């Protein structure tokens, strides 16, 4: 498995997803859905590492990507004013993608994956909405929420096909990537999910200690991912790709 074929595999999945959610009016007004390369990589990982990919797997992989795209689309809805045509259609594009994932799985008769992905969506929503709840939570609890948000869907998908051996690696890597992004957002623009969740705007005095704890979490996640990677039977090129995702 060369680096080129890894990239090609991710690109193929990407174009399959785009093909399945193509909608003239949505494309014209809100553009293509957001697809995160690292998410697509982990959807493909078991197959890149040698597992046989059936047509059923291909459809399933597409649907996991579509659900991600659906939920990411709704992250683009503004909190207060969503009255522009673009915003209205962003709401509907997320709903459309969500309907399409169900339709594809219903056509292939994959009821088990519908159930597991729905469970993943519920888990993810429960953690996403926490940002609007009044309880105070620790840095660790918030990082756990990021883990659920980033990995719940792929985790459920692995579970359906018995690829649980990849779960811990996927969770740590995807959490690391998101955490690194959030760390940068706090540092550079004083924005982001964690900046808001940890109420850092209201508590500037704890900013420094919080950043240290977040850095600590980054190191922990990286180390854990590297440990799992070392013990795994993952091909060297794939290992190299994952290592690139977890550079500080």
């Amino acid at each position: 498995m060369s680096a080129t074929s890894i990239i090609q595999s991710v690109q193929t999945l990407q174009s399959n997803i785009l093909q399945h959610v193509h909608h003239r009016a949505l494309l014209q007004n809100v553009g293509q859905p957001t697809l995160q390369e690292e998410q697509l990589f982990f959807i493909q990982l078991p197959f890149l590492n040698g597992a046989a990919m059936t047509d059923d797997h291909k459809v399933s992989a597409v649907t996991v990507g579509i659900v991600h795209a659906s939920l990411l689309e709704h992250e683009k809805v503004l909190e207060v004013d969503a009255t522009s045509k673009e915003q209205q259609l962003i709401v509907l594009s997320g709903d459309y993608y969500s309907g399409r994932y169900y339709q594809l799985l219903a056509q292939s008769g994959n009821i088990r994956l519908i159930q597991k992905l729905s469970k993943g969506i519920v888990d993810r929503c429960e953690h996403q909405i926490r940002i609007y709840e009044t309880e105070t939570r620790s840095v660790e609890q918030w990082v756990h929420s990021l883990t659920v948000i980033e990995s719940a869907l792929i985790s459920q998908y692995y579970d359906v096909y018995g690829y649980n051996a990849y779960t811990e690696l996927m969770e740590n890597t995807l959490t690391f990537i998101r955490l690194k992004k959030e760390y940068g957002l706090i540092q550079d623009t004083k924005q982001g999910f964690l900046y808001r969740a940890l109420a850092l705007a209201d508590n500037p005095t704890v900013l420094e200690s919080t950043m240290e704890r977040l850095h600590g979490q980054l190191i922990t996640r990286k180390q854990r991912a590297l440990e799992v990677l070392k013990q795994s039977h993952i091909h060297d090129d794939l290992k190299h790709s994952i290592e690139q995702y977890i550079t500080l």
Partner: protein
Amino acid sequence: MEKMKIKMLYADIKSDIEIIENELEQALNSSSHLLNDASIHLLQAGGKRIRPVFTLLSAKFGDYNIERMKNIAVPLELIHMGSLVHDDVIDDSDMRRGRETVKAQWNNRVAMYTGNFIFARALEYVTSIENPRAHQILAKTMVELVNGEVIQIEDKFRLDQNLKDYFRRIKRKTALLIESSCELGAVVSGADEKTVRHLKRYGYFVGMSFQIVDDILDFTATDKQLGKPAGSDLMQGNVTLPILLMKDNPLLAPYLAKVSTTGLTEQERQNMLALVRNSDAIKEATKISNLYLKKALKEVEALPNHPMKKKLRDIALFMGKRKS
């Protein structure tokens, strides 16, 4: 008064509707207290629960078992609820059924998460049904429902649209979910194909009539009856049947021009409502709604003999004559 009438109509399946109501509550139970609050808020707002009612009544024509039927009736109501939560974001609606909407009480993002949570719960629930055809029908309905909403946004403030555009839109926006409620009730209960077809068509015709009545009531009912300002549809740019039927009336032209630019003042809204209420458009629209009702009743006649035929007839007539 209307609520009493509905209760009477549902009398035969009262205990089963109570089961559905309890199941809805359980389905919306979450580890997030905010999602719980938003869900309770929605459940307390009530609703006619017409989709589960149509599902259960249709299922009576097959092998009826509430334990099995709840697995399709509950998701249908959840999908309807979830789409209303997202619709309120799209329409920037602060009030629904006389209560604050989720987006007004919290914000748009909370409404998005709530809607997504409800949709996901609906699908989790429906997976207890293994019949692939049922999933294909429901999935297609969900996609078409969104397509209807997309068309509605594209058609906003478009006065050059014709009746065909309007019917195409309301078919997807409303009729399809009622059609599917009937069809799914029949399919899941194993009713014969001919019965499935008649119930499906019945649902479609009732759904069309239901939406036309809704569009009429938006002009003829009071703010209190509607739980939101009368004329809201037009003020949001949704050109519905009464307006399409009188769009060439020169007295309406200044209001239509203002709606798409500066919006209407309170006095202008009242004047516009009076103009529409006193026009022939309401009578014409009612006639069209009645035509759909008539077609629905014809489908009921074609169904095999069953005590529920009368119920289907009564509910269709009630939907067509309701005042709120």
